[in-house]
């Protein structure tokens, strides 16, 4: 019994004021003149009707934790962030580096030489748009390899464009004539268009086929859209109707015998992209590719991006657990982590190394309180301090020396003024 008590005491002594739990309710500081709760109970009950009921809530005395940013906390917090962030950054950077990506920009290359200066005429003409491209695999690509088309300068996020669709029409056959939101691509020849609206109308219609060593690479176009879209947003009983029948031809046509829920190109296309530069999934190649494999791509260059100077790219990419190739996340994590490490370091330097503290004018105003404040930190961080004080406060200084035992060599005391 004696022993444990002793141990407990020394523990408190050594830990002096650094890690005690704060319990605000236990501190019974003397209440000031205004306080008068104590005498309340003895009061006559006659007028008690107006007396506020006591509860910790109404008296704003609910138990609360009051964390404050002590140097220790600040440094630990920054340190913690850097400790967590830097590994994440490294891992994500590695993940991104593991991704193999082949990007082929073809919109210019696939225009015959004679039309180089007038690509729009070419694309609107009836000339054959077929074009062959050869892609070289630099690194081994593990299946599945995702095939994307990437458009540029295409405002799929334009308000007019985004709004121009009819979700109910896509979902249910019964609301096939619900085309009010689809203007201006709502009716054609007096009949509602299914699927209506600008988005569907401008469906991407370049097609790609791949062959490796004269052998066709199968592009799996199933499962490239979200399952929920197929199941719930695009009806199984909704078939394209009156589509691309108008005077203005947009993009691809749809096979009117296949329900919308299976028109995955359309489903992918209908998920509008957030930015004017976007990739959309075209299909998957379920086959590993080896380095130096030459892939022959036969593509139909149908889609008009020439009007608005948009680029077209064909992208073959593997994925990691983080998705496609993007170093930014890793770099950002490393930057923030590094910054936190730097901050932690500089705060530590300030607390441990920096020999003196330049005091702000407000210090002078409050220095007696500060005098109290710094030694506290001293106990917590063992930081040497130079007190800069005015001559007249010599007495306070000697007080301080005695009270906090400032005679240790860590502390230099200077006088000014």
């Amino acid at each position: 019994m004696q022993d444990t008590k002793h141990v407990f005491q020394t523990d408190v002594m050594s830990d002096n004021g650094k890690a005690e739990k704060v319990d605000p309710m236990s501190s019974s500081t003397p209440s000031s003149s205004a306080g008068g709760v104590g005498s309340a109970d003895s009061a006559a009950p006659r007028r008690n009707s107006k007396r506020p009921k006591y509860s910790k809530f109404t008296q704003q005395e609910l138990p609360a934790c009051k964390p404050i940013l002590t140097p220790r906390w600040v440094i630990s917090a920054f340190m913690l962030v850097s400790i967590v962030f830097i590994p994440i950054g490294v891992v994500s950077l590695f993940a991104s580096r593991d991704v193999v990506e082949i990007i082929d920009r073809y919109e210019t290359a696939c225009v015959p030489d004679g039309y180089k200066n007038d690509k729009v005429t070419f694309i609107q003409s009836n000339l054959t748009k077929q074009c062959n491209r050869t892609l070289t695999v630099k690194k081994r690509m593990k299946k599945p390899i995702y095939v994307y088309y990437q458009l540029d300068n295409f405002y799929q996020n334009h308000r007019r464009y985004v709004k121009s669709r009819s979700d109910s029409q896509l979902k249910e056959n019964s609301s096939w004539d619900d085309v009010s939101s689809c203007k201006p691509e709502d009716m054609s020849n007096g009949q509602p268009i299914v699927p209506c609206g600008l988005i569907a109308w401008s469906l991407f219609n370049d097609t790609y086929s791949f062959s490796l060593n004269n052998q066709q690479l199968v592009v799996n176009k199933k499962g490239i859209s979200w399952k929920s879209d197929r199941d719930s947003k695009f009806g199984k009983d909704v078939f394209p109707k009156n589509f691309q029948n108008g005077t203005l031809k947009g993009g691809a046509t749809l096979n009117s015998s296949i329900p919308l829920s299976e028109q995955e190109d359309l489903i992918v296309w209908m998920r509008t992209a957030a930015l004017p530069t976007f990739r959309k999934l075209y299909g998957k190649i379920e086959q590993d590719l080896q380095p130096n494999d030459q892939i022959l791509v036969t593509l139909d260059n149908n889609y008009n991006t020439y009007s608005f100077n948009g680029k077209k790219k064909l992208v073959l990419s593997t994925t990691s657990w983080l998705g496609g190739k993007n170093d930014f996340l890793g770099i950002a994590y490393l930057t923030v982590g590094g910054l936190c490490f730097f901050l932690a370091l500089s705060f530590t330097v300030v607390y441990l190394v920096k020999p003196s503290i330049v005091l702000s004018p407000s210090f002078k105003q409050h220095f007696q309180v500060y005098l109290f404040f710094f030694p506290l930190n001293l106990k917590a961080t063992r930081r040497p301090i130079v007190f800069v004080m005015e001559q007249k406060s010599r007495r306070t200084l000697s007080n301080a020396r005695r009270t906090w035992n400032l005679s240790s060599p860590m502390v230099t005391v200077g006088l000014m003024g």
Partner: protein
Amino acid sequence: MTQGRIRARLRLSHLYTFACTRPEATEEGPHSIEGPGYSRIVHCNQPLMHKKKPFKYRSNYISTTKYNFFTFLPKALYEQFHRVANLYFLAAAIVSVTPLSPFSAVSMIAPLVFVVGLSMAKEALEDWRRFMQDIKVNSRKVKFHKEEGVFDYKSWKKLQVGDVVKVEKDQFFPADLLLLSSSYEDGICYVETMNLDGETNLKVKRALEVTLPLDEDASFKNFTGKIKCEDPNPSLYTFIGNFEYDHEVYALDPSQILLRDSKLRNTAFVYGVVIFTGHDSKVMQNATKSPSKRSRIERKMDYIIYVLFSLLLVISLVSSIGFAVKTKFDMPDWWYLQPQNTDDYYDPRKPVLSGVTHLITALMLYGYLIPISLYVSIEVVKVLQATFINQDIQMYDEETGNPAQARTSNLNEELGQVDTILSDKTGTLTCNQMDFLKCSIAGTAYGMSSSEVELAAAQQMASDLEDQDVERSTDFRQKGKQQEIELETVVISKDEMVHKSPIKGFSFEDSRVMEGNWLNEPNADVIMLFFRILAICHTAVPELNEETGSYTYESESPDEAAFLVAAKEFGFEFCKRTQSSVFVRERYSASGQTIDRWGYQCTIFLKVLWASCREFKLLNMLEFTSKRKRMTVIVRDEDGQILVLCKGADSIIFDRLSKNGRLYEEDTTRHLNEYGEAGLRTLALAYKRLGESEYSAWNNEFQEAKTTIGADRDLMLENIAEMMERDLILVGATAVEDKLQKGVPQCIDKLAQAGLKIWVLTGDKVETAINIGYACSLLRQGMKQICITEISSDAKEVVKENILLQITNASQMIKLERDPHAAFALIIDGKTLAYALEDDVKQQFLVLAVQCASVICCRVSPKQKALVTRLVKEGTGKTTLAIGDGANDVGMIKEADIGVGISGVEGMQVGNAVMASDFSIAQFRFLERLLVVHGHWCYKRIAQMVCYFFYKNIAFGLTLFYFEAFAGFSGQSIYDDWYMLLFNVLLTSLPVISLGVFEQDVSSEVCLQFPAVYQQGPKNLFFDWYKILGWMGNGLYSSLIIFFLNIIIFYDQAFREEGQTASMPALGTTMFTCIIWALNCQIAFTMSHFTWIQHLFIWGSIATWYLFLFVYGRLSPSISGNAYQILVEALAPAPIYWLATLLVTIACNLPYLAHISYQRCFHPLDHHIIQEIKYYKKDVEDQRMWTRERSRARERTMIGFSARVDAKIRQLKGKLQRKQPSSEIHSPARSA
């Protein structure tokens, strides 16, 4: 009842030498009343004459409401749309009905209706309360002359000009009346004007001689008369008019006018004629309109709204120009938008039109920058804050049973920014009760009880010395000496305090003079004389309490009553006053001195023996005026000896002492200084014996002067009085403590430590006010008093010039002062103030007043109180708080930024301070808690809340704008409509409300212990432009981080292992998740006080977001649209979604975190330090240190208890140093 009849027969006018005994009115002649401003004619007792024009005056119906049934809607709506923000929201709501709106109309209109409706309901409720009050007043009953000498009751509102009314004892006057006669045969009546000027002492009003016969109901049968007088005006102390009666014209002056809302006292009944009714009455003319008050923060918020509105305009313009440009130049190429088939909005051929229409869309889309939810939240927060104020048990007064009440909730945060407090005196600072505490008789000081100042000084000294003891514990010799001072200062013990005598007005304790023991004192004859002066030299009237058989005294000033009570306790009981005599029942006699050697029991025997009535014939009375500062009675005692008994201000008395009368002067002066130091009000007493012939010579001269006619009559009387009051013999001095309300000095002290300036505005006399100043430590010995007074001169310009000169001189004096401890006090009275408040003087006056540590304005009318308040408010541009209890304070309470009413015992009276106030507390001392705790909290809460609100809406709103730039400025939002709707309603509102309601930087005890922390409010550290712009900058930074990090992370590549790329809903949802996290973490960093409620709200908000997303995604896609299954299917399985959230959240908060860490370490604010001390539990570990730091942390104050105690300690230390010149030398050497 018998007593009453005796008094009724008494001609009290006999007592009043100067004020009431005027030559007959006929001698002066009537006023010449001509021209504009004097058009009112009242036909007395002929109310029918006033039924039609031109004599139809306003009815006696009063209305204090702001609105009536018809004007409410337009007026209140105007008031509401006076606010910039509301106007903007109204515009937005109107536009939202058009197809241009990016949102639904309901989401714009509903919050507006809510905000406006709530405020209007509040207004309506307040006005309804006022209306009910009015009804109550208007339906009070009064007796009026019906016909043929019969009196009957009718309600106040039906009273008409010209009616004769009969008002009975303790009733209020229903209108301004001309006094015709009273129950006293000389037509005197006593009036309490508490509601007009706050004075509780009684004022005497006197009827004209000619109307005296009209003293019973029947005599009004044939009474008619005509009053010609001034038009209604607000001046309470003037009245000019003529009374035509029986073909004669008599002049009227203010002493015949009974004002509405004053009360008849000590008089059985009076008859009067109604002159001014309803809103024409002087008190109503004094009423100022109740303005709708707005807090400083709220007004500043308007400027921020302007800033944000400009920002909104700028980005909307950018957006719309961008849109127009894109539409004109790029859109023709965007075939997928079918530019050839467009309506006007997207028509590339009409870019200007599309630009303009887009401007409106953009204004609404970016409307998130100006949060209507801010106003909703603020309303909610303020109501809750007000509830906390109402519920605070520590501001509940057990005696009156009144809790504190926030009557309007929109000024809570203003409480934290108060710079100047303007306080009423009577009823607010004091209970208007005097306590006889000490006296000095024949050079010996009697009275052991200590004043509050002494008690505090002793306590402070004790703790100080204890401190030093620890330092110098080795030196016992010195310790002994220090205790010596302690002993000589004050000797008190707690027990004495508890057993304090229960007699009202008497706290004297000294066994040497009590219980007849004074007979054993060396100067027993002088002591007896002293007591006799107390018992005789006054103007009070005794009133026998039938039940107890003891007397109570009705006097003009409460200290006279205290003297009489004291005299009674000493054995000289004033028991009867007749026209010519004063009777005193003396229980002991000086002759007992001869037998004192037989000891105590003999004295008891004598006590019974000598209980006999002595008669003192009252020969003359020279009454007290503030100019004379003394009062003298000349009496003849039973032995035929003529005595001149005089009491007055010490300086005045000392000037008039004879050579042999100065025996005790030195000792008495010393005692007087000590009393003054202790905050007591002092009077010196003196006497002289007079020979018969000497007296009759003087009396003849006096009587002659009294009957002379002419301008110099008053002067002559004064000179003759002066002749008598010469060659006096000093007897002693009294010290009376003006009973302050409980805790007032401590409260003022704390308020002074909190850096607040306190002005006292009182209707009382200058002396009374100064004494109170001393008692509550607004004044102290050694303070330089600047008295601005008017010179008596007819020419207005001369007076004004003189006052200006005085002000300039005083300012000069302050400028030249070198002593850092020097403090100045400004004292000014009402008449002078009238000049000082004129436009060309007031600036100088204000500059002078601001430099003074305390300002006391005496004899000010309600209107002047309001004017002074306005001067301070507008002149200094700082927040003023007015506190008062009576109707005379209403003007000031309404005028000040914050009005606080004292809800005293009287309850809710008509037109009293509480009804006009914004907050009501039961006692002055609660002001400390109201300001230092609630004010401080509310200020910081609202300030932080508003800042955070702007931050959050900027951070959110700007992301919308950035996205525009990537969407061809088309007005498309990246977020789902529901996200945006819920953003302010559900997802970020509760944490910010919990910040506004529950945040505490430091606990309430600490607030009270460190009042200096309060200065953060008046200095506006938390809502200055740096802070606001800082938060806006933080918002800008956060928006950039949130948007661009997400954009780059989700740029074009697959965001999942399954190869899907991020679509607009996915990116928007991720971004929104980041916003929710970042904003909620930000508020967690902003808070410093987490109860379970904050935890619940903050982390609950984040959880709610995920929950919402989950549930929303589960709903049928026809409702959830693009967000269908987004969390479950697309985002949650993608690690990049979580990683992006983490990264963005940390990155958003990093600068703020670094900033506050830096600030805490290098430029900590006061509350940071205190938090740290508390955190390390230093206060518990080392109580003594905590106390010391506390006393050191207070602001250096010029006024207040501490300042006075400091001064006292300085003085005592000075004494000590003289005694122990070597003691200080040792200490530095030893401690070094």
